[in-house]
């Protein structure tokens, strides 16, 4: 009789525990728990060789097309189709192509407090812009006075989001396409480039 009471209380206790604390319930099945993280750990520990191979295998078909000694669209691939396919990947931010945070745009373009450095945008590596930033590259055209050229901000946005929609196989990274910059961040850069008060346009 006594033991039956204890057993009932015990069962009830388990029921309570199980009902209130799903975590405790998991602890009741140690076998399962042990197996899972081991599998997960194995997955995490890929060899450096495997990881590098995966990274190279991530090459998309457009990158593959450009991987020739001229680094241009090869014969046999229609440039217009290439452009159209790239244009189709461009996603626009809900708030429009002109962002609101011009300061953030400037930081992403190249932080003037850090000599124009910026890890993700890094525009000064190839373009000149703000006359204060002397260490600017000449691979891309200078962007001084960019906002005064009558360029549609939408085209600026597309060029930054996916430069290959404009010049296929260009050296300019497809920053939005790869997710290096979000649509909102690109919109802020566009706003900075078109802002009449931006140092680019003064």
């Amino acid at each position, binding site marked *: 009789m006594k033991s039956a009471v204890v057993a009932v209380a015990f069962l009830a206790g388990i029921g309570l525990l199980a009902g209130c604390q799903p975590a405790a319930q998991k602890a009741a099945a140690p076998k399962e728990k042990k197996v899972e993280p081991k599998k997960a750990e194995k997955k995490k520990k890929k060899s450096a060789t495997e990881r590098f191979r995966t990274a190279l295998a991530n090459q998309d078909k457009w990158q593959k097309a*450009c991987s020739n000694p*001229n*680094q241009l669209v090869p014969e046999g691939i229609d440039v217009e189709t290439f452009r159209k396919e790239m244009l189709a990947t461009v996603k626009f931010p809900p708030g429009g192509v002109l962002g609101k945070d011009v300061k953030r745009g400037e930081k992403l373009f190249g932080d003037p407090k850090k000599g124009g450095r910026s890890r993700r945008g890094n525009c000064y590596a190839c373009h000149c812009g703000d*006359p204060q930033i*002397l260490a600017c*590259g000449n691979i891309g055209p200078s962007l001084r006075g960019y906002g005064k050229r009558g360029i549609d901000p939408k085209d600026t946005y597309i060029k930054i989001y996916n430069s290959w929609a404009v010049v296929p196989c260009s*050296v300019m990274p497809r920053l939005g396409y790869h*997710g290096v910059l979000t649509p909102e961040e690109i919109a802020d850069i566009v706003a900075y480039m078109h802002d009449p008060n931006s140092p680019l346009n003064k």
Partner: protein
Amino acid sequence: MGKRKLLLSALTGGVILGAVATAQEQVPSHLQELLELGMHPGHAYVDEGRETFNTLKGPNGKTCASCHGEDGAKLEGAYAKMPRYYTDIDRVADLDLRILSCMTKYMGFDPKDKKFRKEFDKWNGRYRVPLATFVASLSNGMEINVKLDDPQEKELYKKGEELWFMRVGARDFSCGICHTVLTGKRIRLQGLPDPVKAKVYTHWPAYRFGSDKMWTMEDRVRSCFKAYFLYEKKWDEKKDWVKKPPPYSDWVIALELYMKYAANGGVVEVPGLLR
């Protein structure tokens, strides 16, 4: 205001001109002065490498000199022919991999011994960089003469050329887009050299002032891949970043072979000296 603008543009022009001038020279002038004074920091690595070569005993009692002769007498000119296929490891090896194979195969070091790998793999370790610099310096004054006789060498060369022009990663880069197509332009103020045409392999391993270290070509090639933004799944997830190819891997050696084959005929002059 007008004056200031003029001054600024003059300054910019000066900086650009200066940068272009230094990009064209092999060794910047302030480093050239050091060379003339006989103060090449890379020579310390050569001396250290020679010392290690002659005295470091592996677990089975052999030194590098036991097989290759005192001061590497039998290794003269070896570096000028590398990377090449070696029957004993059945692979095309560059200098770094060749030294690693010698130490593990013939000197008795355990390739899985962490202490050994630390001394070998690390940039400031005592084995790889000094030994590589020393062995490379034994080919000074000789012409680079890399042959593609073995099928493995041919295959790897092809792989290297392919990899050189391969656009990949979140920045759509390849080695070739900057170092073949856009040569002569600048990334910020740094001129883009053409390591293939300019036969820069003649002065590698090189001592770089910027990092205050000796770099072997293995270090150089691997570090280049940091700019690619390579990733496994998503580039902005830190766990997915793939910064460098694994050391002594075929990818690295393929690129080295591609560059060094192009440098055939150039005269080895190591250690080099760079900004």
